[in-house]
């Protein structure tokens, strides 16, 4: 048996003919940019995520970037982001014109609400909690902090489509949320794509301008970008939305098997009764001195694993100008050395999950 870390081919094998048909429908009409197909996808996305407005963009990163740009921040302003995330969170904030402030994470790898409050200054304008691995941050506390200090709450929900926290959908807590439709996300398209969701009409209108050259009727009323979700990608998204509930359930099922079988050997992600993560990644932690050995053992048994966030954001070269030192955000640094992502996606079959479990157990015997 050979278990790949990701297996898009298997996923697309199932949906191939439906997807091709949906693409053909768009191409026959010659309707490629900002059309009905996109509008339909946006509406369905909104109703799934319990938000009023969804705006299709070129990528999840663009959703963060365009919204931050719309705020016209200056270099005195500060944006707080967690030190553990994919780099897109950092570049979107770093390129927005404001100063980037990193906040350490908790043992759950999400931003630590207590440390977050300590990061706040008079200049803090935006907080971007990242629902890493598809698990919603401690939004009660974070929302409370944002309300208390009147700070904008922008949820980086790139990995968390469909995740719930106290029965409320990821992306429905803050002022705005950014979702990604990248091929490796749970709801995905066959290229880059993203969605910004919000309940505020004013924000929705502004982002619609920014994604399409600032054009309103015949006037260019502000300087914008070109960041439109292609109708072709929206057509694929519509096909994928039909299957999403089933896919999320499978992820959750596999994760619960891992959790119950592996928690005696590895630090597995705790799932509290009030949360329903979607497990974009399933990350375990192991003593840093044994991680390489363990990873190699699994590889020898044809099980691919990955270290997804091996260098925290504040220690990336691109953050050099901010002058964070090693040890400044200790939890994220520690977790980056102990984390390991196991294969987990809906297209795995139960035999493969059992195989992985068996091999891991045999390592610890």
């Amino acid at each position, binding site marked *: 048996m050979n278990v790949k870390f990701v297996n898009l081919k298997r996923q697309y094998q199932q949906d191939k003919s439906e997807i*091709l048909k949906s693409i053909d429908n768009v191409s026959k009409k010659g309707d490629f940019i*900002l059309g009905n197909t996109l509008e339909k996808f946006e509406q369905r996305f909104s109703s799934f995520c319990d938000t009023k407005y969804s705006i299709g963009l*070129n990528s999840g*990163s663009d959703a963060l970037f365009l919204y931050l740009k719309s705020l016209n921040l200056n270099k005195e302003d500060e944006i707080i982001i967690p030190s553990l995330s994919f780099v897109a969170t950092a570049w979107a904030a770093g390129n927005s014109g404001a100063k980037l402030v990193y906040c350490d994470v908790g043992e759950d790898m999400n931003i630590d609400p207590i440390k977050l409050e300590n990061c706040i200054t008079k200049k803090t304008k935006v907080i971007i909690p990242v629902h890493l691995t598809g698990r919603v941050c401690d939004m009660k506390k974070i929302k409370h902090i944002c309300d208390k200090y009147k700070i904008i709450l922008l949820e980086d929900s790139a990995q968390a489509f469909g995740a719930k926290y106290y029965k409320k959908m990821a992306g429905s807590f803050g002022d705005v949320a950014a979702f990604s439709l990248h*091929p490796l996300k749970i709801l995905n398209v066959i290229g880059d794509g993203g969605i910004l969701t919000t309940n505020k009409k004013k924000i929705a209108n502004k982002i619609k301008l920014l994604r399409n050259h600032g054009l309103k009727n*015949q006037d*260019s009323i502000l300087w*914008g970008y070109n960041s439109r979700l292609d109708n072709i990608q929206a057509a694929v998204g519509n096909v994928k939305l039909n299957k999403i509930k089933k896919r999320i359930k499978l992820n959750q099922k596999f994760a619960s098997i891992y959790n119950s079988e592996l928690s005696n050997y590895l630090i597995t992600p705790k799932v509290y009764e009030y949360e329903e993560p979607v497990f974009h990644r399933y990350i375990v932690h192991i003593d840093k001195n044994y991680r390489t050995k363990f990873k190699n053992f699994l590889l020898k048994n044809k099980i691919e694993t990955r270290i997804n966030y091996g*260098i925290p954001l504040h220690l990336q070269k691109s953050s050099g100008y901010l002058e964070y030192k090693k040890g400044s955000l200790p939890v994220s640094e520690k977790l980056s050395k102990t984390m390991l992502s196991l294969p987990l996606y809906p297209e795995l079959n139960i035999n493969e999950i059992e195989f992985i479990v068996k091999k891991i157990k045999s390592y610890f015997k």
Partner: protein
Amino acid sequence: MKNFYTSQYKKDIKKKISHNYLPDQFKDSEQILKKIKILIKNCDFTLGKDVTLLEENFKKLTKTKYAFGVGSGTDAMFLSLRALDLNKGDEVITTSFTFYATVGAIVTAGGRPVFVDIGDDLNIDPNLIEKKITKKTKAILLVHWAGKVCDMDKILKISKKYKIPIIEDACHAIGANYKSKPAGSFGLSGCFSFHPLKNLNAWGDGGVICTNNKSFAEKIYLLRNHGLVSRNVCKLFGYNSRLDSIQAIVANFIIKNRLNNITKKRILNSKFLDNELNKIKEIELPIRSKAPSKEVFHLYHVFCKKQKQLVAYLNKKGIDAKIHYPIPVHKQPAAKNFVHKNMGLVNTDKQVRRIISLPVHEYIKNKDLIFIVDAIKNFYNYERKIRKS
């Protein structure tokens, strides 16, 4: 006059002679769909081998050393300017007679647009550039409008003299050349678009940056993909602006099977209209490229009298005549911070009131062209009659 928006293009399709040829072009796309089927089988969706092939194709088409597929033509310009690390107050010289994206890219990249007037070829007037150069000028963003390359001999001299890099907005100019040298190969950066209504089109947004400069190429490589050197190492804060494989597939198909014909047909149609319309007293032709230079007529413009009435008349006749664009960029609400008195955009202001665009794409037949010519003749005959009576 709402006549150039996506939504409007979609309505104009109902006109007999339309600018929009997409349903004709893609009514049978079996060959493209076959390739997409393979893509879906291999799941090579992001920066895969189709994008590499497209980049190879572009290096050949433009005779440049490096090419990078990006999210759109707008992004091509935005990333090129971002790579120059503009500071507040830095100036970029360009023209106001362009689509908003050209100037939008300058502003969003942190620059200040400085407008130079156009000549009677609708491109930047090279004799007016030097006057606008200051210590803060960081780039000249040339627009090869409608598919005609700017007067490069003069402009390259200026670029060399002041050591100011040139970025080419070649979004209209795939296949065009100036004295046999391809559009997009003159400057530090050549920017192309695959928007569905471009001569070389895809099924959504897409673009390419071409360059001969190695260090610039390295920077673009990072900027388009999150600044990532490898999966875990981020060297600089970049963006996400990658050409989708599926769009690369469509563009590669067009390059291989259609582009030459598209270009030829547009040139032929334009030459026909030039000959016929030149006979009408009220019509004047913009200055065209002379051999061995080649313009590709992404848009076909002539200057006319009674512009708005003529457009309305032709539209009524089922001819999709348009004005690209009735309001120049410097008169847009978004430009208010960059506008001052005496900008000297005399010709820009004059020509937007005289231009008209007529469809010349590959699906326009000779009888359509004759119909267009006759309609224009009729319009002016009628106008003359009214004036006499």
